């Protein structure tokens, strides 16, 4: 039943052996030492400050969607950093290993990475950036923002939410451990048949790749179900479909994609696993296998997936532009329709990833036209954002800068995407770095939108704003890095440089590669600026405290509740009367009206089951990679037993009484009043030090209804 392995295997440890630990690798061994020292330091500090109980009770067992979202974002940022380091290594190798006279170190003929190691680096870079950086970052924001925006106290299934987080964490841990135990795949992030077959990739790298992606896929599918059910079932009274904040619509369309497309990935990879573990012939070159079946199955997921990550980014931009233009979003309904149209068309374009398969002119034309169709709803969105800003009262703070940067990158990425949609052009630039530059432009739209959102929603989650100076410094450094890396990359693509070269034979390309290397150094500075941003913001947090409506011009429902958001979100669920509820209340002077009496509320209990299941899933993945069958059986049985245990135990939840609630609310309101007073004395006004200019045809800033006006409102 199981395939015979070329290397050693024993029942106790499977394929695991000392020789699989790369202790002689000059890059990995020092890194391993650094990681171990870092881990001991962190664990030691937690023990020294006695924070284990706090960590376990408040974070590791939490089912609070905001905390889970914060942890998703932390995982995403850590993986973003790891993926960035991979990118830095790729760029350095390509800047170094140019021409036959280039030197080589660490066993490489040219540069410092052997071809096999280089293959692992770019494969890990792709998997990490798409599935373990972009996806958790976006899921984190959906988790935090969506329930507050629709006026819910939590997600529809808080326990499932925690499970999704810990599955993602298990996947991240699995790909990280592949650095130090065994290898990672060298077949690119999307894999090629038949190179990933056991015959051609006998190591464990491909197995790490399979089970990492399977775990992310499972976590994301479960998360998608949770978010969809939350949006459809948990909206506050009065929150009709037409009043739903636009980020919620974007999330809805994205998760329809996640729910329907991730199973295809799960099957595609499970079939690769069947080939590698059971000796099946799905994608083998002989015995009736079909190589292109794999590529089709993968991209049937792969293309919807890229829209799954870009649609929430569009939603974030749609929230940020109106807030800092002080205007409602232009074309709300067309924006919703565009999101849904993109989600629908995402299913019809997968073949444009391999026009060169040779499907013939009719098939290629159909997919070419379908691909160009994507440009229509995306164009609608771009124009809607432009018209939102047009004649608005613009504030160019850091969040707005990042959002505008995303818009420019979308223009570049979108137009080059239209070029690639033409099969005739695609045949010319297929597999060139032009394609790489194109999809990096698109994925950078997401990164820009994420950093915009970090700045924009940070005060809502933590109660204080981040430092404007460092946020802007980071923006300009990051943008300079983007230009320096990707403009030469587009040019090299036109010159015919193919992707994934561990050795660059053409010395004419060298100057461009050096400019890109310089660009990655500028990116490194922006990473340092991000650390400075975090440090300075936390150091000065007392100075940057905010009230419920952190920006003074916010529009959607999340800005109605306190900052930081209490764990129950809303003491009394709001009754929604308008599309931009907070803007409507503020414009009518009723934004400070608080509920006059409280009721008991029911909240879910914390649970340790989710994190234990995540840990067991990690063990299962590790055991599958190394073919330790007894450990597979043990962890699988433990998972089933734990699920059944949880099902018997259930969760009755607990009650926050009205009196407790009133106490907590009083405290929050008192704090907010104090923050308001401080801001008033500092003379910063609602906009702080941001630039704003007055317009003669709009009411001046000073005469807008102040918060005291409508306080006599009685409903």
């Amino acid at each position: 039943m199981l395939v015979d392995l070329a290397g050693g295997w024993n029942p106790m440890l499977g394929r695991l052996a000392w020789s699989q630990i790369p202790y002689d690798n000059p890059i990995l061994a020092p890194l391993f030492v650094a990681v171990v020292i870092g881990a001991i330091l962190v664990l030691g500090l937690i023990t020294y400050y006695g924070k284990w109980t706090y960590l376990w009770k408040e974070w590791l067992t939490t089912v609070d969607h905001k905390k889970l979202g914060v942890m998703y974002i932390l995982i995403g940022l850590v993986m973003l950093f790891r993926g960035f380091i991979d990118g830095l290594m790729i760029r350095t190798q390509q800047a170094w290993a140019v021409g036959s006279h280039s030197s080589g170190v660490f066993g490489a003929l040219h540069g410092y990475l052997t071809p096999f190691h280089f293959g692992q680096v770019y494969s890990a870079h792709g998997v990490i950036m798409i599935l373990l950086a972009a996806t958790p970052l976006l899921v984190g924001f959906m988790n935090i923002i969506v329930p507050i925006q629709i006026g819910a106290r939590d997600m529809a299934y808080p326990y499932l939410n925690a499970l999704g987080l810990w599955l993602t964490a298990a996947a991240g841990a699995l790909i990280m451990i592949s650095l130090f135990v065994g290898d990672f795949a060298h077949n690119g992030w999307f894999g090629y048949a038949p190179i990933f077959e056991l015959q051609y990739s006998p190591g464990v790298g491909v197995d790490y790749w399979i089970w990492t992606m399977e775990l992310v896929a499972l976590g994301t599918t479960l998360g998608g179900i949770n978010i969809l059910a939350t949006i459809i079932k948990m909206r506050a009274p009065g929150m009709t479909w037409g009043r739903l904040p636009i980020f919620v619509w974007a999330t809805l369309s994205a998760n329809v994609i996640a729910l329907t497309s991730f199973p295809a990935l799960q099957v595609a990879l499970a079939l690769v696993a069947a080939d590698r573990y059971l000796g099946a012939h799905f994608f083998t070159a002989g015995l009736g296998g079909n190589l292109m079946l794999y590529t089709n199955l993968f991209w049937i997921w792969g293309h919807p997936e890229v829209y799954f990550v870009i649609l929430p980014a569009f939603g974030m931009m749609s929230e940020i532009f109106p807030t800092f233009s002080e205007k409602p979003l232009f074309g709300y309904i067309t924006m919703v329709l565009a999101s849904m149209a993109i989600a629908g068309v995402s299913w019809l374009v997968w073949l444009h990833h391999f026009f060169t398969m040779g499907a013939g002119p009719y098939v290629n034309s159909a997919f070419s036209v379908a691909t160009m169709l994507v440009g229509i709803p995306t164009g609608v969105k771009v124009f809607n954002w432009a018209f939102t800003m047009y004649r608005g009262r613009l504030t160019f703070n850091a969040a707005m800068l990042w959002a505008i940067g995303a818009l420019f990158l979308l223009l570049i990425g979108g137009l080059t995407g239209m070029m690639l949609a033409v099969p005739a052009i695609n045949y010319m630039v297929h597999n060139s770095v032009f394609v790489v530059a194109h999809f990096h432009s698109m994925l950078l739209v997401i990164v820009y939108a994420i950093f915009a959102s970090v700045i924009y929603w940070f005060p809502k989650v933590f109660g204080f704003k981040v430092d404007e100076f460092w946020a802007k410094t980071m923006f300009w450094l990051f943008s300079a890095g983007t230009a320096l890396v990707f403009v030469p990359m587009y040019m090299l693509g036109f010159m015919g440089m193919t992707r994934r070269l561990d050795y660059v034979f053409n010395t004419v390309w060298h100057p461009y590669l050096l400019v890109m290397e310089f660009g990655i150094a500028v990116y490194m500075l922006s990473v340092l600026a991000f650390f400075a941003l975090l440090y300075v913001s936390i150091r000065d947090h007392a100075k940057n405290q905010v009230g419920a409506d952190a920006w003074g011009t916010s529009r959607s429902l999340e800005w109605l509740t306190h900052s930081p958001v209490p764990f129950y979100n809303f003491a009394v669920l709001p009754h929604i009367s308008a599309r931009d509820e907070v803007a409507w209340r503020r414009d009518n002077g009723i934004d400070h009206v608080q509920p006059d009496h409280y009721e008991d509320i029911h909240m879910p209990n914390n649970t340790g089951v989710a994190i234990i299941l995540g840990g067991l899933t990690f063990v299962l993945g590790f055991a599958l990679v190394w073919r330790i069958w007894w450990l597979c059986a043990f962890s699988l049985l433990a998972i089933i037993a734990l699920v059944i245990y949880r099902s018997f135990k259930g969760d009755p939840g607990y009650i926050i009484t009205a009196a407790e609630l009133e106490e907590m609310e009083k405290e929050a309101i008192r704090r907010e009043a104090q923050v308001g007073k401080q801001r008033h004395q500092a003379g910063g006004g609602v906009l702080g030090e941001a630039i704003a200019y007055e317009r003669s045809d709009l009411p001046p800033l000073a005469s807008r209804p102040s918060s005291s006006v409508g306080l006599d409102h009685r409903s």
Partner: protein
Amino acid sequence: MSSHASNVDPKTAELWDKSHYQHDVISTRTFGYFMYLLSDGMLFATLFAAYGVLSYQHSYFGGPTPADFVKPWYTFAQTMALFLSVLTYGLGMNALKHKNKSGVINGLLAAFVLGALFLALDIHDMTHLASLGITVATSGGMSAFIILTQVHATHIFFGLIWILVMMAQVLTKGFTTDVVGRLLTLRMFWHLQAIIWVFVYVFVYLWGYMS
């Protein structure tokens, strides 16, 4: 205030919910589970697509094809076992409406026995194939045939475990919100597996037999 898409008068608007608005727990759970089943359907759709691609003559690489070993009457017996299992589960759910505990238990028990019969027939079929030397490693076509049918059988296996768990929960906990919600979701799961089986029976077994 057309820009806010609101025609509510702010002077009289209700700002905070006073209706003790409650989300319906069972409806939220069954809806979420329904979406999980959609993703399960996509999983099978992908497997069927793979089977479609890998069921040409050359996919079998000159080796055995389903026409060589499929016995339609054997698989028809499996079909009847699974359909009757769904039917008895449905009778159990009918008893649930009358809060009839023994009716529910009997329905679940019958569903379990018939489901186990289905699974036993499947396992017997697979061991028979193995004795003929036909495994996933035989050819691409046989890989697709066996993986598709056995993924379905795995669903049945987990469904059987779930039925046992629900029998225990009905006996120990009675008809609480949690238990009723799970009985309904299990019913959806069980029913979907029967629907998937219709496709497996028609497009894999019967079509394979006739081609």
